[in-house]
């Protein structure tokens, strides 16, 4: 099992980037968000592989076109060339976790076992809805407008 650790780190990255986005919602975060999302996909794919292999297997190089598809991102051949080594680098970094000996460790279904954080079923109105709706780029009262959704076939 090394997949839990992998997941955790992956999540940390994802959450981190989300938080950053919140703080700086302008141009400089574009690349960051793009990359982190792409990496997330890479790591999810890797995690799956790891799970199906035995402990301490080597991590295979990511399949860039497939990752791009699952992340809904189109890449030019130049971009594939540019990103491939970078993503490989990060995947290798996570791959180091495979060295941890977990033979004697009970698999955990969750990372934190602190327990419950529940709330009562009591309604509360979010007060800043107007600002939130105003931030929707394409809104036509009362709906959010999106490009027409078509069946793939």
């Amino acid at each position, binding site marked *: 099992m090394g997949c*839990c650790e992998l*997941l955790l780190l*992956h*999540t940390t990255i994802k*959450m981190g980037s*989300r*938080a950053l*986005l*919140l703080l700086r*919602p*302008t141009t400089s975060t*574009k690349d960051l*968000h*793009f990359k982190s999302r792409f990496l997330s*996909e890479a790591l*999810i*794919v890797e*995690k*799956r592989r790891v799970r199906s292999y035995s402990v301490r297997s080597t991590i295979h190089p990511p399949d860039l076109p497939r990752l791009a598809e*699952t992340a*809904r991102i*189109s*890449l030019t051949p130049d971009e594939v060339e540019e990103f491939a080594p970078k993503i490989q680098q990060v995947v290798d970094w996570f791959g180091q976790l495979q060295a941890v000996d977990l033979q004697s460790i009970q698999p955990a*279904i*969750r*990372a*934190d*076992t602190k*327990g*419950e*954080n*529940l*709330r*009562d*079923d*009591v*309604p*509360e*109105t*979010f007060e800043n*809805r107007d600002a*939130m*709706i105003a*931030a*929707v*780029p*394409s809104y*036509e009262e*009362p*709906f*959010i*407008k*999106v*490009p*027409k*959704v*078509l*069946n*793939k*076939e």
Partner: protein
Amino acid sequence: MALSFFRGIQSRPFLLYPSGFFPRKHALFYCTMKSTQTQIATHEKQEPQLKVSTQSKRLDKISKDFEAVIGIETHVQLSTITKAFCSCAYNYGSQPNTTVCPICMGLPGALPVLNSKVIKFAVKLGLALNCKLSLNSKFDRKQYFYPDLPKGYQISQFDVPIATGGFIDLDLPVEYGGGHRRFGITRVHMEEDAGKLLHTGNGSYSEVDLNRAGVPLLEIVSEPDMRTGIEAAEYAAELQRLVRFLGVSNGNMQEGSLRCDVNVSVRPIGQLEFGTKVEVKNLNSFSAISRAIDFEISRQVLLHNEGESNQIVQETRLWDEGAQKTVTMRKKEGLADYRYFPEPDLPEVILGNEYIDGIRDSLPELPEMKRRRYEQMGLSMQDVIFLANDINVADFFDATIAKGADVKLAANWIMGDIAAYMKNEKLSVNEIKLTPQELAELIASIKGGTISGKIGKEILFELMAKGGTVKGLITEKDLVQIVDPVEIQKMVDKVIAENPKQLEQYRGGKTKLQGYFAGQVMKLSKGKANPGLLNKILLEKLNAKS
């Protein structure tokens, strides 16, 4: 194209993704919900009386050599006040996009907090379905891209669902041959609903309403234990009864609070492995479930018989209510890859034995228990199924017999005149003015001879429409039955004296006229004469040699 588009919307990363992005498992289902919702007839109240179609008769003929295997996935929307992971209220039919917040709109940085009611309801349903509960379960993220899913993933449960390995018991309606069935339940898990995607008629865009995003659902997966459309429809009807009895959902199919997707395959009888499985969606009523499955079975068996079984492919088909057939929605290109992983923003779900026992002890009497109890009271299966179908009707019946009413008579009144009145007036049993107390009183008054059955009926309608008490109405309207022979004899004499012509005809052999005389006497008594006494005295007088 995606990359440039994506860059364009980055600064508002919670917002949705461009078109042409690939449909995912539930996509078209939700899309189609809207267009079909308007044309659905209200089957609900009459359920589960399904009509036998000519199609299913044809089915009997062609499927002698084949067996259908049917499994059902059901989504039940929970009747919590608030959503699963945020405090937004959910009310069906609210103005679009009014009950939303950063959590259910998937804004960056917003964190989900689980509604304790969701766990409670899941445990209730898990116990009612005789499942094993996971003392330790977790949430996972199911990733897919669709405009009604603001986060880009659905919070669900993947490999450790809250409940597994149960079963559900039901009785098939007598008109379909009856019979008791037990169907296996594979699992029950908690998840959140997506928003609603609406397709405008002509425009080049679609519309999204996120009020439903984040509303709690329980997904119930059955074992592939059903063999006919009727069995599948009855399974769904029993699930609806169960969630209503438990109070965890309104189970309303028209509003989409109970949604069924069925998997159908056929195989030659005797073959162990399953045939190719076809998924059918867009089933908005129990009768649609039954008819869609029977259609799908005939379609597949026909392909088998024509040597074209390779034409049966793994696909999702939609039930077309207008055309009464299933049509291809999309073919499966390998299994969808949802890239599940544990939801890092939510802690594990821990159930204590004390908590579970507390809920088990507070479970109401469930439909199956009710049916068995009614059966033991000596009621017919038809009565049993009718009375236990609706929890309010069952409660009304139970309250009536608790007041001492005769079981069979109470059942007859409820299933006869009361049910007919409710149907005509489109009222539920809770909306009529008659109380169980007064129904019991009415039954006792007839049984004890205070009033005749005919007058009882008249009083019943008055009680249902206006309320009041049986005793009050009897006194007010002077309705006490006349059982005094002398008084009845006086009336008989009067009627005979006033109808000499008819008397002559009667005595001339036209004995059918007895009915005429009886009617006249009853009329004179304002319906209060005891019919037995009346007829006895009348016959004596008519046949007496004058």
